[in-house]
């Protein structure tokens, strides 16, 4: 018996999405598109709005863990953070298939439903890894403030790295793309929505350290080995507008927090 195609409208959170999965199995509906409140409506199918229900979400997550295995639930969690287009549909189809194959599904690396998520997650993980190195912070009255502009939602992945690294500091790392921020003070962290970040001008001392860093960066390159192509592959241009060594103070107020 075939399931009824529908379009789910939900709040865009992982819990909301898992609630949709619950509803779909409960009502034999097959979601062919997902919509969050900010998006234009798709009109081809019946639209049903789903209210996030934590208990239902937890049930789906637990059953995923138990029947498909840890690897699969981790894949789903991470895939949800990616910028994969129509990620909800892809994840939903993976789950549909996963419940048939159970634990074996994570070995089917070559299956299109599995590999599309794997690739998206690899992209996310790679981007997160790069940002652990490329994110820049400024000292703003004793608080470290940084800004990134990632394609994927990397904050949950890089959170533990930075809270380890800055164990005794206070810091704020703002994701401009997804308008959320990681806040930390010793012993506590939280990721919260943040639409905007406005700071006053950087202090004299901050400018001093930036200038030293730029000098180091430009001096350490060996002229006889100049290789801009290699530099571009390793450090694509899109990261640079938030990196101290590629910006000048006073130019482009956007570029560095508090410049």
């Amino acid at each position, binding site marked *: 018996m075939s399931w009824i195609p529908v379009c789910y409208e939900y709040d865009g959170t992982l819990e909301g999405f898992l609630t949709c999965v619950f509803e779909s199995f409960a009502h034999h509906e097959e979601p062919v598109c997902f919509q969050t409140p900010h998006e234009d409506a798709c009109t081809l199918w019946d639209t049903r709005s789903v209210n996030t229900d934590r208990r239902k979400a937890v049930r789906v997550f637990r059953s995923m863990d138990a029947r498909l295995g840890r690897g699969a639930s981790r894949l789903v969690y991470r895939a949800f953070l990616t910028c994969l287009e129509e990620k909800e549909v892809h994840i939903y189809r993976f789950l549909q298939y996963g419940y048939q194959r159970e634990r074996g599904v994570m070995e089917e690396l070559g299956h299109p439903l599995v590999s599309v998520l794997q690739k998206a997650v690899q992209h996310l993980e790679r981007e997160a890894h790069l940002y652990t190195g490329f994110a820049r912070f400024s000292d703003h009255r004793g608080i*470290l403030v940084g800004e990134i502009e990632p394609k994927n939602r990397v904050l949950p992945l890089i959170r533990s790295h930075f809270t380890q690294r800055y164990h005794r500091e206070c810091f704020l790392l703002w994701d401009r793309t997804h308008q959320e921020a990681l806040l930390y003070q*010793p012993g506590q962290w939280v990721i919260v929505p943040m639409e905007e970040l406005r700071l006053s001008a950087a202090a004299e001392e901050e400018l001093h350290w930036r200038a030293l860093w730029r000098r180091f960066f430009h001096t350490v390159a060996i002229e006889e*080995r100049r*290789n801009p192509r290699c530099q571009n592959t390793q*450090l694509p241009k899109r990261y640079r507008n938030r990196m101290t060594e590629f910006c000048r103070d006073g130019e482009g107020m956007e570029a560095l927090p508090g410049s």
Partner: protein
Amino acid sequence: MNVMDKLTILTDAAKYDAACTSSGLERRGKRGRMGSTTMAGFCHSFSADGRCVTLLKVLMSNACAYDCQYCVNRRSNDVPRATFSPPELAELTIQFYRRNYIEGLFLSSAVIGSPDITTERMIQVLRLLRETYGFWGYIHAKAIPGADPMLTRQLGLLADRLSVNIELPSQHSLALLAPEKKKAGILAPMAQIRDGIAGSKEELARYRHAPRFAPAGQSTQMIIGATPESDRHILTLSQALYDKYQLKRVFYSAYIPVSDSKLLPAPRQFQPPLLREHRLYQADWLLRYYHFRAEELLDEDRPNFDERVDPKCSWALRHMEQFPVEVSRAEYEALLRVPGIGVRSARRILTARRAAPLSFDILKRLGVVLKRAQYFITCGGKMLPGLRVKEDQVLGHLAALERPALFAAVPEQLSLFDGEVGG
């Protein structure tokens, strides 16, 4: 002299050392401390030469008492000299680290006065960082040949990685170009560090709080192309260093003409052998992660690497009797020897073929890049459909694949990102 000028001079003086990685040690953050380290390490930036910037790489001082011919800092060279005071350098490290510019400090130094005085001064910097600032990030320190072993030991208790540069690939070249350094003077601290690391591991197994000596291991570097040694000579030396001294890494640094000494290649028109350096890194990678031995890759008749294709392709082309490899059945080791198949691809093939029979489409979806591998594998008994190349044309095809990439020749740090095993 202000810090800006010192930083400029002492960065300029340190930049020819290639050994800049922050890998080999996982150390989580700790209450009241500043920083952490990660196993794979990572890059914070890439300079205009395409090299990874991960540590604040500077010399303590460039006012050298020695006169090594291949080095910019040699006594007889006319360059501005500077020396950091320990507090200056410690503060610089901390402030860069807080802003996420760097993963830590790579501290080396010219010989100021004597090896002992130099090492003592380096110890002062490291003490300040570790004890006063509670710095928990990465420190790579250079052991100075000829220093009192007690001092080298102290240095190793404060640093994460130690290195002693072998400098030149043969005793003869060393005697000629760096008469104040002796091969024995370099190998003695190397052996001391090896034993220190082994001893510390044993103690740690017994008591958890035993002091840690260079927990991220030991590395070295040598200069390529300043002297006449062959690739075979160099790679055999590296292999011996890995075997005998348990080094984590050997770094190769293409000679940059910084001297008009008669004993060295004339600076005019000299091109640093970057491609050769790249081939050596590729071969070194094969030694460490692909179970190759130096004598398989090069021999007396073929003492240097082929410039046109990478060492693995070149080896495979000379051993066509071992190919094609059937990917549905081959052992892990055999897969690793296929050009274009790396550690990650080989592992994925093993996993995927347990779940379902393989096909070329599936291989592609696994992320296996077939450009090179296609000439060396079968899948389900068949070569890639549509592939028609005679054996003697394969070299040409492989070389054509490399040509565009050659001059963007990627430094070895890239490998960290490939998800292959981090070095």
